[in-house]
């Protein structure tokens, strides 16, 4: 099991329990009382640790190498996913996967960032950091979804758009801007869920919709904590402090009025049980897709506009958006 630093006490106790258990099987000594006591203590310890995670703990959780990716959730969430490729202009970006599927019988379009699950796959998928053709593929399929009246589900999981020469030459800025612009006007329901890291414009290019959800231990930020620390204090090692100052966790974004709802995670993080996590996502998604489908497209777009129009922090109430 790959454990994180802050989980060490839990791990230690688990090991101790396992030790005692194996001891009882090999000898005649009865330790069941002891074990029961320790298991009770373990439960309490887990409660303490997982209920008081710091922003930095959540950053570690969101970046966990075994954290489920878009392709890990898709088979549990949808029936018959059919992946579709290419932007029809330049190429196919493996950092974004997209396709059509059935969701509780309803045809939907599913789009998500895709990290690699090992080094080789990560190189092929540029660590889940898309190029312009990735965003253009996503937009092409969103337009297709609009044509055929399919709801769109976006799974967000990227450190950000790929910072490279070719990406700039092919219009990284324009591709991101275009997706934001077009998503604001799509005549079908769009539900966005941050499943891991939501990094900057690269995340937002799949992130404009009618509802925004975040998994409990996911993050969403304008810049990585390391980047913020380097920029603000000229010291990337202050990332932990930046994670706290920048307000990037799901509860932070809920408090800022950006996120509609937090989707709870499996105890100890989504990576403990992807299937169970998918069920927790499904619970929220099912209801919201059904309710969004009853709203007239014009009204949907109007509400979407109002949703974004009201986001912002001002010195006083009068500075806030007027009706």
């Amino acid at each position, binding site marked *: 099991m790959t454990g994180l630093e802050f989980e060490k006490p839990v791990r230690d106790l688990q090991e101790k329990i396992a030790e005692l258990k194996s001891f009882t099987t090999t000898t005649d000594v009865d330790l069941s009382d002891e074990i029961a006591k320790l298991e009770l203590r373990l439960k309490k310890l887990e409660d303490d640790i997982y209920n008081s995670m710091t922003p930095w703990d959540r950053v570690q959780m969101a970046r966990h190498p075994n954290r489920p990716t878009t392709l890990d959730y898709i088979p549990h969430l949808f029936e018959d996913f059919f992946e579709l490729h290419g932007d029809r202009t330049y190429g196919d970006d493996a950092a974004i996967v997209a396709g059509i599927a059935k969701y509780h019988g309803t045809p939907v379009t599913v789009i998500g960032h895709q990290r690699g699950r090992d080094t080789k796959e990560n190189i092929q998928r540029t660590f889940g950091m898309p190029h312009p053709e990735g965003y253009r593929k996503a937009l092409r399929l969103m337009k297709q979804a609009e044509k055929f009246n399919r709801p769109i589900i976006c799974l967000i999981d990227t450190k950000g*758009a*790929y*910072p*490279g*020469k070719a*990406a*700039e*030459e*092919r*219009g*990284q*800025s*324009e591709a*991101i*801007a*275009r997706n*934001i*612009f*077009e998503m*604001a*006007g799509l005549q079908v329901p769009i539900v966005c869920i941050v499943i891991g890291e939501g990094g*900057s*414009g690269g995340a*937002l*290019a799949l*992130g*404009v919709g009618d509802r925004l959800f975040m998994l409990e231990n996911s993050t*969403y*930020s*304008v*810049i990585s904590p390391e980047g*913020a620390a380097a*920029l*603000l204090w000229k010291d990337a090692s202050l990332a932990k402090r930046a994670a706290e*100052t*920048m*307000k*990037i966790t799901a509860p932070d*974004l809920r408090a*800022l009025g*950006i996120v509609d709802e937090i989707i709870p995670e499996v105890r100890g993080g989504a990576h403990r049980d992807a299937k169970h996590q998918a069920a927790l996502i499904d619970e929220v998604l099912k209801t919201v897709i059904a309710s969004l489908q009853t709203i007239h497209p014009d009204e949907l777009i109007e509400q*979407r*506009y109002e949703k*974004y*129009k009201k*986001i*912002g*922090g*001002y*010195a*006083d109430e009068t*500075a806030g*958006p007027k009706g």
Partner: protein
Amino acid sequence: MAIKDMFSKQKPKKKKYATIPSEAAKQDVPEGIMQKCPKCKKIMYTKELKKNLHVCLGCGYHYQMTAYERLESLLDEGSFRELDADLSTGNPLHFPDYEEKVAADRKKTGMNEAIVTGVGSIDGRESVFAIMDASFRMGSMGSIVGEKIARAVEEAIRLHIPFIIFTASGGARMQEGVLSLMQMAKTGAALKRLSDRGGLIISVMTHPTTGGVSASFASLGDYNFAEPGALIGFAGRRIIEQTIREKLPDDFQTAEFLLKCGQLDAVIHRSDMRDKLSFLLDIHQTGGDKK
């Protein structure tokens, strides 16, 4: 010391150090009567430079302009009516020292934020103008910049007139975190509304237009233009060099480079800007637009 050492190269070298001013001092000619071009080093009268719209008389280098100088250079005299000049920046994340920094820039620039918005006309044709100013917090976009743009776009919708934006920004404002990021969505959604109603959108990117600003409203014009030499791009040069481990060409992410890559409609010299905009406004008034 041997006699021949007296003629060694060390001595004159020392003298050289003493007489050549530092690189900083060369650039840093005090503001006043004269100015030195940072590119070609030509020395000019400040007055002359101003008259030439802050473009170097020698090499055509485009200096940064304040928002009000820009408006003065473009609009019919006395036609400008400013919007939302009273909105004031908050500190939603309670970021240390943020209020002080904003207050200092307000004092320095006389603006409430990094953008001036309002209604004005060019050759009698009205448009909504949104002019960013890099001298205020590097033109970075926080909640107020996003809100002012969205309101300005709404005004263009209300009055059925074009929306013209001049961008100058280092990107999203770090001190407002993810709220800054969301301004990309807010402004993009506002422009989509205007566009769907047949409204004309013109974007002119000036030096610098990067990060979240280049990846939102700056790139969403029906026409996307830039001033010569402007730095325009999404990711920073240093970050890209670290990622790809190779040196980037000198003209990387300049307006000219982007034009070559097919990312811009045209690069327009500042002295032609007013005429070109006037031409476009005329084209769009003589028919063809959805009403």
